[in-house]
């Protein structure tokens, strides 16, 4: 018996295979040998290398930068000697700085790059303070200047506090830009655009040439904004779905069922107003932006309230210290941000392009919005403020990622035309600066959270090692418990025959292991051993 032929879509002849095409995704193979295509392939290769070895990239880039600075400094010295007119303050200062920084980057690129990043951060903070003080003295303090200075100060603080992480991020972003430029150069016909010969202008030129998807944008507007005669009904439906999704999510958290929580993610409509906000930011529509934000805010409040209500009325309590669905949402890190950015970009892409809109449910699952909010409600209802705030941070991370990544993708795929950005430059800039400032704040909180988690993990590993060593040395004793009291004191319970030896040393080692000023207390239980005789 033979297998039946697989079903064939109507209209496609059975004997027709793909046509013999001497092209790669529409680009003739001969065009792949052009200078432009080879350059694109090289850029892709470099991007791949950077992404594979980001730490080595830092060193290589540091050394290359060092050589460039030294060459600049030497050339500037020669020119200054030959031409007296070139001996200006900034030029002579740049010679000194170039010589010193170039030599440092060449000798010790890894440390120098980090130190230079920190110094740049310090300069940004100082610049922000001076800018703000000058504006205040001249009485020219406005919202734009405050947000600019705030952004600079925040950026500078982040550079000072987390130079390594930000360098790696910047390197990865640069690799992404290189890869995108490489792809554009490979897959656009050679000689199509002479302006696009340079790296940056190539990418910008490609963005400018995106088709103006007016029709898609019109459909998208109808999807994202509650406008027109049916707006009240749509808003009511939004609220109803939010309540349903929140109830399902809260119940899923209570019974610790991931499947139920995923069901809630698929129902939740919160991504609609957030994507609406992202589109409004790009298009420079402040009223639509305000309305979308207020709808999102209403949904948030509703979800938190529903979570709290369910926590209050259910007879079963949620233990926020052991519930796996709660624990998975109260300690976000930058990894969650990376996931949210990718999912936000995918969401905007799926919304903006009708041919890939089937991916939206997957996006909704990847970028959970309602479950963290219900966890906030459940935790706050129990007075577990810290855990609730952690879940709120996860929600903010996801929301900010949707806004930033979504807005960027709307520009890249042509939903937001670049000429519209030029027309509404001030509004778009204000919205973008506001979003970036919130984004920077979220990143700062995530980095702090990640740092705290890493320190806690290190402390836990250190304590484990100390206790294991001690119990190996004193085989009669056991560690029967460990607790962290509300006042920050660590308590370790030991059990064994009589008073355990070397307690002072053990306490000292444990104090070193917890690595902060917390008090360490060790208690012991005197165990009496009764051995039964093997009598008759």
């Amino acid at each position, binding site marked *: 018996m033979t297998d039946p032929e697989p079903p064939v879509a109507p209209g496609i002849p059975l004997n027709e295979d793909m046509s013999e095409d001497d092209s790669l995704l529409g680009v003739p193979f001969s065009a792949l040998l052009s200078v432009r295509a080879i350059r694109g392939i090289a850029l892709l290769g470099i991007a791949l290398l950077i992404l594979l070895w980001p730490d080595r990239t830092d060193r290589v880039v540091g050394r290359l930068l060092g050589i460039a600075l030294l060459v600049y400094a030497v050339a500037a010295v020669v020119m200054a000697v030959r031409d007296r007119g070139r001996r200006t*303050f900034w030029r*002579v200062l740049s010679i000194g*700085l170039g010589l*010193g920084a170039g*030599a440092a980057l060449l000798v010790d690129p890894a440390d120098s790059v980090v130190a230079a990043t920190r110094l740049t951060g310090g300069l940004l903070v100082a610049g922000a303070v001076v800018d703000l003080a000058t504006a205040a003295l001249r009485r020219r303090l406005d919202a734009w200047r405050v947000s600019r200075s705030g952004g600079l100060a925040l950026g500078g603080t982040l550079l000072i506090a987390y130079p390594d992480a930000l360098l790696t991020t910047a390197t990865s972003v640069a690799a992404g830009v290189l890869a995108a430029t490489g792809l554009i150069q490979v897959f656009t016909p050679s000689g199509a655009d002479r302006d696009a010969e340079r790296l940056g202008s190539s990418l910008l030129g490609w963005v400018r040439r995106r088709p103006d998807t007016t029709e898609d944008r019109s459909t998208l507007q109808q999807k994202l904004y509650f406008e027109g005669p049916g707006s009240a009904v749509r808003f009511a439906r939004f609220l109803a779905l939010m309540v349903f999704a929140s109830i399902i999510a809260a119940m899923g958290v209570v019974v610790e069922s991931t499947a139920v929580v995923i069901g809630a993610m698929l129902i939740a409509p919160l991504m609609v107003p957030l994507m609406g906000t992202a589109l409004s930011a790009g298009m420079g529509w402040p009223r639509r932006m305000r309305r979308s934000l207020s709808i999102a805010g209403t949904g948030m409040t509703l979800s938190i309230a529903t979570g709290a209500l369910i926590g209050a009325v259910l007879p079963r309590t949620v233990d926020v210290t052991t519930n796996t669905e709660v624990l998975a949402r109260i300690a976000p890190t930058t990894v969650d941000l990376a996931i949210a950015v990718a999912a936000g970009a995918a969401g905007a892409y799926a919304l903006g392009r009708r041919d890939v809109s089937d991916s939206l449910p997957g996006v909704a699952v990847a970028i959970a919005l309602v479950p963290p909010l219900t966890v906030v409600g459940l935790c706050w209802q129990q007075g577990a403020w810290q855990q609730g705030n952690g879940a709120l941070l996860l929600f903010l991370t996801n929301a900010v990622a949707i806004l930033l990544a979504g807005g960027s993708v709307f520009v890249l795929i042509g939903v937001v035309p670049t000429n519209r950005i030029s027309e509404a430059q001030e509004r778009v800039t204000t919205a973008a600066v506001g979003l970036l400032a919130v984004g920077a704040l979220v990143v700062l909180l995530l980095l702090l959270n990640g740092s705290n988690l890493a320190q806690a993990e290190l402390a836990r590993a250190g304590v484990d090692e100390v206790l294991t060593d001690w119990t190996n040395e004193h085989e009669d004793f056991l560690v029967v418990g460990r607790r962290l009291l509300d006042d920050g004191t660590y308590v370790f319970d030991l059990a064994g025959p009589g008073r355990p030896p070397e307690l002072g040393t053990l306490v000292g080692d444990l104090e070193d292991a917890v690595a902060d000023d917390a008090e360490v207390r060790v208690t012991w239980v005197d165990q009496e051993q009764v051995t039964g005789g093997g009598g008759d």
Partner: protein
Amino acid sequence: MTTTEDPARRPRRPVGVTVLVVIGVVQGLVVMTVGVVLGLLSEDSALLAETTLTRGALLGIGLAVLGVGLVGVVLAVGLARGSDLVRSLYAGIATLEIAATTFGLLTIRDIRTAGIVGLALPAAVLWLLYGAPNTAEFFHR
């Protein structure tokens, strides 16, 4: 025939340059004094025993230090008279100082706070020589 410069047309010396001149002269005089003291101490046998230097060596060091101080004073006087060569020498020293401090700032972790201050001083010297008002007119006369 000799020409004399009209004092009325001569550009006034910028205050910043005067400050640098005063600092240079004082610094040179202090160094010269140290050189003289070292020369006088070359007769001190207790010091010679303590430092394990010979009398000739200490006298040589004293003369060298005296020479350095003298050069400092001469350069400061040159700067006061508006010599562009001396200005270039001052700028060269400040530039090397900036380069060394920048190198230290980026590679040695412990000197960062002191390094920033150390960077500000030679930068200020450069500004007084090249950035402050009227310096170009004073040195290019």
